[in-house]
């Protein structure tokens, strides 16, 4: 278990190093930030100062090593636009994103897993047909459309929830359902497929022969065996929710990292782009590492 852990941590560090190089290059490929950051009234001297102040006048390798050295000390630079430490801006935004992603995952699990189990247990039924329809709908409908429909229905027509914003429990409902809806569709299908396979396996047949109650077979034994790919998928899905909730965050004016990073990219705010991507990646990697470790706990063959 120890060597597995060291190997995974080592791989993670190499991934992060490569990521710093990739994000550094990609940020600079978006173009020169000077015309965007400096107002048109700025003089040539102002523009030169801007480039010098942020080290943009140095060679790219030099800029990269300065960037690398700084992040090792926890310094992600100062946002070109906000003139505030990029790390502070990201940390301020990552809280709302984590809250929304976490709640969306709970919604997705709460809907998707029971649906998948039910459809696997009673495959030839109206319930299984409904699950198939729900899953198709969930995967086919774009999140911005779902978001707008939810606003029309539950904020305008039935004024139950705020249409957008952040701060109260009510603010979470519509964005969490929007994000959770899409994820729940995939989770339902994955659970259905894996549960079907588990329920057909020899050990489940044996347990039936032994007269173990069906509820126990399904929820304890079959579900545990079907859980491994679902847990992996949940980890990936959570990572996607962290970085891919841009549209939902925009529609619901959610002050999260998705909106922050998109605006930073559009405004060529290199330090902010780098801080957003690296911290999101760190989270993503940490979640995957945790999933790998959980996997190792669940399946002894992986520890070898």
């Amino acid at each position: 278990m120890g060597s597995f852990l060291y190997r995974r941590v080592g791989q993670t560090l190499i991934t992060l190093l490569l990521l710093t190089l990739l994000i550094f290059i990609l940020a600079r490929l978006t173009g020169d930030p000077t015309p965007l950051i400096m107002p048109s009234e700025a003089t040539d001297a102002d523009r030169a100062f801007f480039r010098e102040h942020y080290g943009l006048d140095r060679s790219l390798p030099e800029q990269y090593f300065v960037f690398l050295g700084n992040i090792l000390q926890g310094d992600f630079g100062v946002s070109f636009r906000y003139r505030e430490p990029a790390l502070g801006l990201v940390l301020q935004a990552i809280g709302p994103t984590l809250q929304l992603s976490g709640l969306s995952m709970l919604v997705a699990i709460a809907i998707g897993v029971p649906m998948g189990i039910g459809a696997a247990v009673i495959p030839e039924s109206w319930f299984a047909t409904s699950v198939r329809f729900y899953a198709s709908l969930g995967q086919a409908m774009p999140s911005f459309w779902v978001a707008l429909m939810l606003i029309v229905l539950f904020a305008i027509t039935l004024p139950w929830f705020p249409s957008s914003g952040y701060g109260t429990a009510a603010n979470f409902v519509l964005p969490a359902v929007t994000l959770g809806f899409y994820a729940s569709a995939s989770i339902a299908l994955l659970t259905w497929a894996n549960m079907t396979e588990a329920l057909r396996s020899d050990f489940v047949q044996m347990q039936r022969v032994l007269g173990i109650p069906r509820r126990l077979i399904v929820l304890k034994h079959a579900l545990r065996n079907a859980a491994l790919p679902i847990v992996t998928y949940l980890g990936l899905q959570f990572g996607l929710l962290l970085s891919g909730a841009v549209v939902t965050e925009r529609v619901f004016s959610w002050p999260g990292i998705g909106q922050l990073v998109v605006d930073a990219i559009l405004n060529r705010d290199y330090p902010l782009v780098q801080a957003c991507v690296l911290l999101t990646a760190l989270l993503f990697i940490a979640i995957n590492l945790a999933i790998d470790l959980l996997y190792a706990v669940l399946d002894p063959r992986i520890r070898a």
Partner: protein
Amino acid sequence: MRHLPNRPGIGRRAAMRGTAGIALAAGLGVPGAARAQAKPSLTVALGSDVVSLDPDRIPGGNEYLFMANVFEGLYGHDENGKLTPILAEAVTPSADGLAYDFTLRAGAKFHNGDPVTAEDVRFSWQRAAAPETHNPRAAILVANIADVIVQDDRHCRVTLKRRDASFMENLGEFFYIKPKKYLQAVGDEAFAKQPVGSGPFAFVDRRVKSFIKLRGFDGHWGRVPKVGEVMMKIVPDDQSRAAQIQTGEADIVCNVPPALVMPLQRLPNIKILRVSSFNNIFVPINAVANPNLAKPEVRRALNMAIDKAALVKTVMFGFATAQDLPCNSAILGCDVKVEPYGYNPQKAHEMLVSAGFDFSKPLHFLGQAPGRVPQSRETVEGITYFLNKIGVKTEVTILDYGAWMAIYGGKVKDPQIDLLYANFTDYNADPSGRLLRAIRSGGSYSWYSNPEVDAMLDRMNDFASPAERAPFLRQLFAKLHEEAPVITLWTLDSIYAVGKGISWAPTPNVSWPVLWNVVKAA
């Protein structure tokens, strides 16, 4: 069940900042804070956030939605856009236009209770012009100030290095007065986080990309707001912003896209308010790099090819005013009477033929992706249609704002680009900032070069007074109409949706909401 009014984040960080703000305000004895609480609160949904709260570090026009409500200059503009005394009561310019004697308004105070004095004016100039401040807009006004001589608390003399007929007009947007004592006590960085001005609203709190909270300043010298707390919510998505007014979560929604006006207008209890703005839409013509576009008659022909009235009606849903000059007619000098280009495709084609225009080469037209300016893509499509109609081929590229700006505002202009969709907002009625940047050779946004026009632009402000300059400006705009460096299109209307119980006359010719005159029924 109806939800409670939306509240901003109450995370530990925000709570600490809020507490610090309150403690600071309490320590400094904010006058009128208690009384402001009793007034109705106001929620305004904005399309975009501001970047800087420091008036000496304004990176773009969006900042004025904050600055225009929290800070003030010596002179500014009233709700009709007319130049009017603000922190000064009166001014006496010298005959040579090199000195201005200001008498400050008695009773003008900063939000922390300190009186606005001549020493604050001097300090504000020193800070705004200091090289270490790196004020990106210093060159417009403050860099030309030679000295601010304090005569007593209420009197000061501002002397200029050279004559500047735009000086008075620019005071309101490019020379904000800051509190010397407070700023020196807290320092630049703390001031940028907790700014104190003298405007009708005091800053309370903000969360980047989420909200800005202001409070009506009852100690204001004259423009005392009739609302208490103002919550400016940042709602970037157009549909979501429109939903805010439908649900009653916002009292005022700014930047309503023209396409959403009609559905909102049909709803009861929602009013649409529209006022003209200085946000001008036009198409710069790359006359420098493309010999096909070098002749003025070719550029005039391109202007004649566009049916602006039709585009205003169909593309802009009527929420724009067609212009024959590249500015709102309320801009000084832009009211000159010129013969309209008119829509005449046949004549346009004939002019192009007689000018030897090469119809075989397509014009590369750079457009701006939707999101920043209403109907930007549709406008480009409309223009392309009319150009194609007279036989001019076009190749259109639509880029996101950042990529578009990198080309439009790039130091070296891309010779492959022939036409660009562009928008330009004047911050007041003075045209010099616009013309120097968008027309003069080497200007950040200029795709045109003409030594004769450059010479006129260089002496544009070298007059003792605006009145003396007025005929020259008209002559300049008449020359620009003849030269046609751009395809002129229209100025946009500012569109607001307001809810039940709101009575408000938005200030025309600005692109930001000035809120002190909002009345909300309790």
